[in-house]
């Protein structure tokens, strides 16, 4: 343990700062960002556009931060199912991954929002109506009455976009988890099992803690990709950043202001996130 620690300390000694080791890309982007900030402070149109788009940043973050954890959980379980020897579980997981990965995300969003959700609500209402005729009194009739009158409005377009993005990214995360788990040597599992651990205990205590260091970098990439793909919710008229950008542009015809500020806001979010992911990676000592 001691040896490993000292090795790492050696590794994270900061490099000597010279002109060639400076993070030039970050400096250049920072200056470009400052130019936009300057416009926002000095130009009325930029200021108004910025004000208008801020609400979209919150919606975009809300969609991303809700969809990503769901996608990760889906990914973990489907990834494990994909490795399962049980033919039924394995087949279901494989079908899910192949189907969802093969459909463009925007089509998936439209199918779920305008096809699947209305269908589910319809079925729920039908079950409720059936239930009312069967149980005319008693506690169950109230429950079925609720089902019969359950409104599609309870599942907002934003929620549908979150569900669709989570399902869509769940398939990618499943492959990330599968690859990460498979990258851990078979011997680890065999050793854990021989110590008397059952499969799930071995997975939880031995395999996943090791795999997570290999899973985290691609997971972080997907988090940033999901943030950008949340812009697809615009097809459902969800007021996230891209939708507000389009609304702004079409109502003012000021194309460049809207797009420049939107790009600035997206870049600020993704660069902060990728910085955070890098920090996490370093904290978990990934990359030795």
């Amino acid at each position: 343990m001691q040896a490993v620690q000292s090795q790492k300390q050696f590794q994270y000694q900061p490099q000597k700062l010279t002109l060639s080791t400076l993070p030039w890309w970050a400096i250049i982007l920072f200056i470009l960002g400052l130019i936009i900030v300057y416009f926002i402070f000095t130009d009325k149109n930029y200021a108004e556009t910025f004000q208008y788009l801020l609400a979209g940043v919150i919606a975009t973050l809300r969609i991303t931060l809700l969809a990503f954890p769901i996608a990760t959980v889906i990914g973990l379980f489907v990834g494990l199912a994909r490795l399962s020897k049980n033919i039924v579980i394995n087949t279901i997981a494989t079908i899910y991954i192949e189907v969802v990965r093969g459909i463009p995300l925007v089509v998936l969003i439209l199918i779920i929002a305008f096809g699947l959700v209305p269908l589910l609500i319809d079925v729920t209402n039908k079950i409720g109506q059936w239930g009312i005729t069967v149980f005319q009194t008693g506690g169950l009739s109230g429950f079925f009455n609720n089902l019969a009158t359950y409104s599609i409005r309870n599942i907002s377009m934003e929620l549908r976009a979150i569900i669709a993005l989570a399902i869509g990214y769940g398939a990618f995360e499943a492959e990330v988890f599968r690859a990460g788990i498979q990258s851990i040597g078979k011997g680890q599992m065999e050793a854990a099992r021989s110590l008397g651990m059952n499969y799930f205990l071995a997975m939880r205590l031995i395999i996943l803690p090791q795999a997570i260091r290999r899973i985290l970098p691609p997971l972080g990439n997907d988090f940033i990709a999901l943030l950008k793909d949340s812009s697809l919710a615009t097809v459902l008229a969800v007021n996230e950043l891209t939708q507000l950008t389009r609304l702004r542009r079409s109502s003012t015809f000021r194309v460049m202001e809207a797009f420049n500020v939107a790009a600035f806001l997206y870049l600020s979010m993704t660069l902060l996130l990728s910085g955070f992911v890098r920090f996490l990676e370093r904290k978990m000592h990934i990359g030795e």
Partner: protein
Amino acid sequence: MKKSYIIPYLIILSILITACGGPSPTPAPVQTEAPPPVQTEAPAPAETEAPPAESGSKLPDLGGRTITVAVENAYPPFNMIDEATGEGVGWDYDAVREICKRLNCVPEFKQAAWDGIFPAMQAGEYDMLADGVTITAERDEIVDFSIPYVIVGQVLLVRADETASIEEIKADANRLIGTQLGTTNEIVAKEHFPPERVKSFEDFGAAVLALLSKDIDGVVIDNVSALGFIDENPDQLKIAGQLTSDEQLGFVFPPGSELREAINAALQSMIDDGTLEALNKKWGLTQ
């Protein structure tokens, strides 16, 4: 053919560079003439005469040139895809073909998305846009319009089983209204209903889909395309009532287009000999 893909990017790039140069680029660097919303080219009081023709009968000859016409193919009855043939059909197709017959030109229809069509027209990506476009002062600042070919109104499209009136829908905080992003319908919707209850969809197809699935309760739309959607979804939709009645529709040209005069003359000749009225009747633009 390949080269035409590069040009828009070059334009965008050049706009980007100029936009980064100064904090407040004006949206309309071109077009210096005064922009009253309609019939900009007719200074004489006699509005019924074809402006460029001395006698009123002689039309310009375009010498067989090709005109690229942007259409959305998603805005019945102006332009849509015929389910049987897969070809584009509609008022716009008939009207532009008739115009080109009179002017000796060849129309080449190109499908374009509504979103972003005005910047594209401003950049001159298409020779003209035929999409039942309402003539407004704001739009006239960045593009040029033809003379209006029809005047329509905007209505509220609702499900056939709707019992509430427009006023009741307006008063009910739970009722949502849909429309298409960047249209005059969106503006009217936000004037008539609380803006936070107005949802702007990518096209009317998605808005009507949301209406049918009960996600929203009404769609603000031009009456002619409302009838188009009612045709496509019989017994499921109806018109709750009229919201406005003064939408003048015209063709759109890039600023300073040399085609506008010629097409105005052709439109005027079609108005004079009754062809336009017959066309409007055929596609249900007027009753």
